[in-house]
C-alpha cells in the first residue's frame, strides 16, 4: 500500500496527462475546458515546459561533481577541471548580471561570439575528418549489399557536388533520382515502422509496462 504513491500513482498521472493530450487533439473543440488557451491541455503543456526549463540544473550539478572530484583527487586532469570551474563561474556571473539587470555586458557578448561560436562550430565540424578516413578504410564493396550502398553513395555524392555534372551529365540525373525516389522505399519504411513502434511503446508506457523512465527505488 505504501508503495502506491511511489509507483502506481505515477503511472496514473502519466496516463491522465497523456489522455488529456489525446482528447485535446481529437475532440478538443467538442469537450469544454480541454482545449484552447488557458484550459487543461494548455495548462499541462505549460507545466511540462516549465519543468523542462528547470531540469537543466541537473546536468550542471553532475558536471560540477565530476570536475570537483578531479580537482580534489589531484588527478592529471585537475588543472583542466579547475579551468572549467573558473570559466564556468565567470560566465555564469556575467549571465546572472544580464538576467538581473537586463543589460548584456561586453565581455559576455565577446565570449559568446568569439569563444562559444568558434568552439561550437569547430567541434561539430571535426566529424568531417572522421567520415573521410572511415569511408577510405571501410567503404568497400565486399558483397552485393555493400556494393549497392557504395553505388548509391557515390552517385549522390556526385549529384550534390556541382562538378559531378561537369564530369558526366548522368551523375546528377541518376544521383538526384536516388535522392528523390531511390531512397524513398527505405526511408519511408523506417518512418512507418518507427511510427508503429512508437505507438506500441506509447501504449505500453500508458498501461505501466514500460518502467524505463522512472528510476527504481531501492
Amino acid at each position, binding site marked *: 500500500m505504501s508503495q502506491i504513491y511511489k509507483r502506481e500513482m505515477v503511472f496514473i498521472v502519466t496516463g491522465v496527462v497523456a489522455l488529456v493530450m489525446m482528447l485535446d487533439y481529437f475532440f478538443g473543440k467538442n469537450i469544454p475546458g480541454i482545449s484552447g488557451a488557458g484550459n487543461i491541455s494548455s495548462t499541462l503543456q505549460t507545466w511540462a515546459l516549465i519543468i523542462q*526549463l*528547470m531540469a537543466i540544473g541537473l546536468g550542471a550539478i553532475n558536471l560540477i561533481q565530476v570536475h570537483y572530484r578531479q580537482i580534489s583527487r589531484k588527478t592529471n586532469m585537475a588543472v583542466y*577541471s579547475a*579551468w572549467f570551474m573558473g570559466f564556468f563561474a565567470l560566465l555564469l556571473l556575467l549571465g546572472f548580471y544580464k538576467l538581473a539587470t537586463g543589460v548584456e555586458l561586453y565581455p559576455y557578448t565577446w565570449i559568446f561570439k568569439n569563444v562559444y561560436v568558434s568552439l561550437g562550430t*569547430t567541434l561539430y565540424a571535426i566529424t568531417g575528418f572522421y567520415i573521410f578516413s572511415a569511408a577510405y578504410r571501410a567503404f568497400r564493396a565486399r558483397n552485393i549489399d555493400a556494393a*549497392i550502398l557504395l553505388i548509391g553513395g557515390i552517385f549522390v555524392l556526385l549529384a*550534390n557536388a556541382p562538378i559531378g555534372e561537369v564530369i558526366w551529365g548522368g551523375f546528377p540525373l541518376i544521383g538526384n533520382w536516388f535522392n528523390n525516389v531511390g531512397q524513398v522505399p*527505405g526511408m519511408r519504411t523506417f518512418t512507418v515502422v518507427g511510427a508503429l513502434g512508437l505507438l506500441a511503446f506509447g501504449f505500453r508506457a500508458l498501461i505501466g509496462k514500460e518502467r524505463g523512465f522512472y528510476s527504481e527505488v531501492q
Partner: protein
Amino acid sequence: MIGNIAVAYPTDPLAIAGLWIALFLMLAIYSYPLWKENPVYRFAEHTFIAAALAIGIIVNLTSLMNTAVTPLMSGNLLMIIPILLGFCMYFLLVPKQRWVSRYPIAILVGSSLGLGIASNPLPSIVNQIISTVTPPKAGTAVWAMFPGAPTGDWFSFAFVAIGCLCATTYFLLTYEHIGPVKPVTIAGRYFIMLALGAYFGNTVLFRFSMLAERGKYLLQVLGLVPL
C-alpha cells in the same frame, strides 16, 4: 547580391583579438585530428563545455523568468505548482527520495506520449501509405528519372511501391524468412542499402560543409577572403 556584402575587417583591438582567439581555439581543436591529443586541445574542449553549460543555464533561466516567474509575480498563483514540480526533479540526486522526481517526469512523459500517440499516425503512417499507393500525376518532376519521358513517372512509382513492400517485409520479424518470403526480404534489404547509401552521400555533404565553413573562417581571419 547578398553573399558578397563583405563585412569590413574590424579595427577595434578587442574585436580583432576576438577573431584571432576564435581562430586559435579552432586550431586548438583541430590539433587533435591533425596531429595528436595534446594539452591545448584539452584546454579548448573544457572551455567549450564550460561556455555551453553556462550559456544554456542563462538562456533557460531567462525563458523560465518569462514563462513562470513573471506570471507568478503578476498574480497567477497556479505557477507555483510547476515550479515546485521542477524542484522535485532534483530529488533524482537523493537516492532514498528519488521517487519524488517521478511526478514531474510523469508529466513530461505523459505530455510527450499523448501528443506523439495522437499526432504521429497521420503523417508517419497514413499519409505515407496513401502516397505510396497514389500514382503520380503525369510529368511530376520529382518522380521523373528522365525529365519529359512519359514512362519515367510510372517507373518511379512502381519502384517506390514495390520497394516499400519489400523493405517492410524485411522488418517483419515474427516469422522466419524462408520459402517464397526470402527473395522478397533480400530485395527489401537491397532497397534499404540504397537508402543508406544515399543517406551517406547526404551526411558527407553536411559534414564537409561544416568543415568548409571553418576553412573559410581561417582565410577570413588571415584577411585572404572578405569577412
